[in-house]
């Protein structure tokens, strides 16, 4: 698989448009397939993650912080990974790692908060929605009640794509503590206003999830790196291993807002990310779930191609992300960053709408109709094996 096989825009739409909506089993998603979203909070610099090392313009724009050509881990004749991502190379060689370049959306917003809201709610740039895209998907095709929860958020206080009232979403940091503390939540009571109703709902979700997680716990042998992201992946893996069922997990990795001194910070973050993804893969293989696991990175935006005066980068637009799993067709997707076609703010044009990536998860991975959850038809990427 390489980018020649990538079906840009209308091309991919032509392939899927003939599919009648009826092929989607009404209201029943294939939730035995797990989705793991990895948020790179702050806006990872995609250009120094998937480096266009053959493009002289890249080195012109970044005299101080570019990744040197002889340092990159070459994927093809134009793109290479940051050296800290070395742990991902076995996945690449095994064709389990898809690298999608130039992901973005029209009329990009450069605010962290607004742009992540756009990503989390899958809204248009000028549209304000309150429910997360997964919340809407689960409303349309409910997750079985027997599952521990619809989704779990690890390592963040924000529910992101699982925000909104309709979903059974949990935040948890450690499964053992969660099950032990759950006795403190009752869930019984009369809701007299929105705030109280929210609290009571959280209590009920806790009670149900704890009952399921507590009865099905499995001890994993796989080891996780000793940092916050490693611990978050460990918790995620334990939730999956409990066999109680979970449709989606969102793990957050913070610190990517590198306005200054980017090199050292990103070097550490990308190393942690690669270690975490690889550990998660090992754990999923251990419990026989790797073929039913799809991991995707995402964040609010990429960063500006031209470095700033502080050895960092400011807020940008289009970005590169990773998709990995046992049934992922590894390779490069999307288009290389168009450094010669920057906009008035000095930012990149996009080639793949982020909602195409979401449609891939909804339509192809879960077999549910993405059009409602995404407020429109988007084109799944052809990056999954049957």
């Amino acid at each position: 698989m390489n980018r020649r096989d990538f079906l840009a825009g209308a091309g991919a739409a032509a392939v899927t448009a003939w599919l009648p909506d009826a092929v989607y089993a009404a209201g029943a998603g294939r939730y035995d397939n797990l989705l793991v979203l990895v948020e790179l909070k702050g806006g990872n610099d995609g250009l120094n993650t998937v480096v266009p090392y053959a493009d002289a313009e890249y080195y012109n724009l970044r005299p101080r912080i570019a990744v040197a050509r002889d340092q990159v881990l070459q994927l093809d004749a134009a793109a290479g990974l940051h050296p800290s991502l070395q742990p991902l190379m076995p996945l690449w060689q095994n064709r389990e790692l898809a690298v999608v370049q130039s992901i973005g959306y029209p009329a990009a917003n450069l605010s962290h908060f607004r742009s992540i809201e756009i990503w989390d709610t899958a809204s248009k740039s000028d549209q304000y929605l309150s429910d997360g895209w997964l919340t809407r998907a689960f409303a349309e095709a409910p997750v079985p009640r027997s599952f521990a929860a619809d989704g779990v958020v690890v390592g963040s206080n924000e529910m992101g794509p699982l925000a909104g009232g309709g979903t059974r979403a949990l935040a948890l940091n450690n499964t053992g503590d969660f099950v032990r503390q759950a006795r403190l939540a009752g869930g019984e009571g009369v809701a007299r206003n929105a705030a109280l109703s929210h609290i009571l709902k959280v209590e009920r979700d806790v009670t149900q999830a704890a009952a399921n997680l507590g009865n099905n716990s499995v001890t994993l042998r796989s080891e996780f790196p000793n940092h916050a992201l490693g611990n978050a992946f460990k918790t995620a893996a334990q939730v999956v291993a409990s066999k109680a069922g979970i449709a989606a997990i969102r793990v957050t990795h913070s610190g990517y807002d590198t306005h200054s001194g980017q090199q050292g910070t990103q070097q550490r973050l990308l190393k942690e990310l690669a270690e975490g993804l690889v550990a998660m893969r090992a754990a999923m293989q251990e419990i026989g779930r790797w073929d039913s696991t799809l991991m995707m990175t995402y964040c609010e935006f990429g960063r500006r191609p031209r470095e700033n005066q502080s050895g960092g980068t400011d807020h940008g637009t289009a970005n590169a992300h990773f998709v990995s799993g046992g049934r992922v067709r590894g390779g490069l997707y999307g288009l290389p960053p168009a450094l010669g076609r920057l906009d008035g703010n000095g930012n990149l044009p996009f080639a793949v709408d982020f909602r195409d990536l979401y449609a891939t998860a909804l339509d192809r991975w879960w077999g549910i109709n993405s059009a409602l959850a995404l407020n429109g038809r988007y084109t799944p990427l052809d990056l999954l094996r049957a």
Partner: protein
Amino acid sequence: MLKRLFVFLIALLPALAAGAPMGFDEARHLLNRTSFAANVEDIESFAKLTRAQAVDQLLAWTSGKMITPPPAWVNEFESPRRLRDASEEERKAFQRQQAEKGAELRGWWITEMLTTPSPLTEKMVLFWHNHFVSGLQKVRSPVLMYRQNQLLRKHAFGYFGDLLHEVSKDPAMVVYLDGASNRKGKPNENFAREVMELFTLGEGHYSEQDVKEAARAFTGWSIDPDSGEYLFRRPAHDEGVKTLLGRSGNFDGDAVLDLLLAQAQTGEFVVSKLWREVVSPQPDATEVRRIARMFRDNRYNIKVALRALLLADAFYAPQNRAALIKSPVDLIVGTLRQFRFETGEVTPFLLAARQLGQDVFAPPNVKGWPGGEAWINSASLLSRKQFLERLFRAQEMRQPLPAALPGASPRERLVRAALDIHFDSELWFKQFAQGDALLTKVVLATEPAATAASTAQGVPRLRELVLDPAYQLK
């Protein structure tokens, strides 16, 4: 005729209400929102006042004065320059020392919140900390964060325009939003964007071009790395003509701030945020416009806006009582104050606040803590309840502690502090000789959510009440 008389009487009602004593329930509500916890005696004395008298009383008590002495080092700026030739060892030692100072700084503020005679002052300083956000994660200097806290304190009830101008030149802010790297010809947009999006106008009320032009106006706003003081670097300042918000001129940063203050939207943005802090999660657009106009007409006098909010009919409306979710600081400081816990070192409470999602002096990002329902998810709700349960359980299992050995490790000190929490239940319950109804009314902002009738008494009853979902509301 009768109809006209009726209309006349209806019109008179609010005036009558304004002139009558507010009564127990309104006093409890007012104090729940403007302090960390309402005690029986405070509620009863406020109940005798009219709404206006009560609010004026609360505002008269506010002051910038602190009663907790600051940490000893607050006047010693630690220049990062000293690390230029430092060894790896020295760097690590410096970082350890800074981390300890950061903990001391948080401890100082929490102590002030626990002991201040004007809780409203601390609540407003915290509000501004969450509006003009800076954080230790990036500023890295506890001294600069302390100075910023003093600045927020100085203007907490003053004029919003003064606060905006001064905080924009505040060294912690300059570091936090990359002012030092914003130079002529090489602008860094971080501060210019946030001043519009988060401090004054709000998202959607400015363009990307406005951000770019404003960034040019703020070029040169920097700090002196030796003293940690604000420094204007004239050579780095862009003297050219800038065009933003429909105006053109050789604006400097102060001129841009004045342009922002001249926008009606700024008053509405700030008043809406205050509304969500003290009144309800959903601001009433008409009332916000009315109060914002008063706010602007009075040179952005913060007291004027706050007074209007606390006297608005919406503030006392039944549907807005117990409609806000306590922040972690409300919950922790409020519980300790409500039950008059005697405490030793405050470290366990700093850790609790961090675990519950509100690490003071270190908000998650420049937007601050989102608050409201976002405070409560499965993880944070269980942590809240566990904190409350342990607080009352520690009481039952309390044993005399052996004297501390000199040079105790931080961990040992923490364990000791956690054990050194005392609740004098006998004394406390003396307020409630009248029985459970009053107890419930004081501990909870609304009726218990749990439907089952309780026969528990004493501390077990308290435990039931604080673990009731309604205890999370104010």
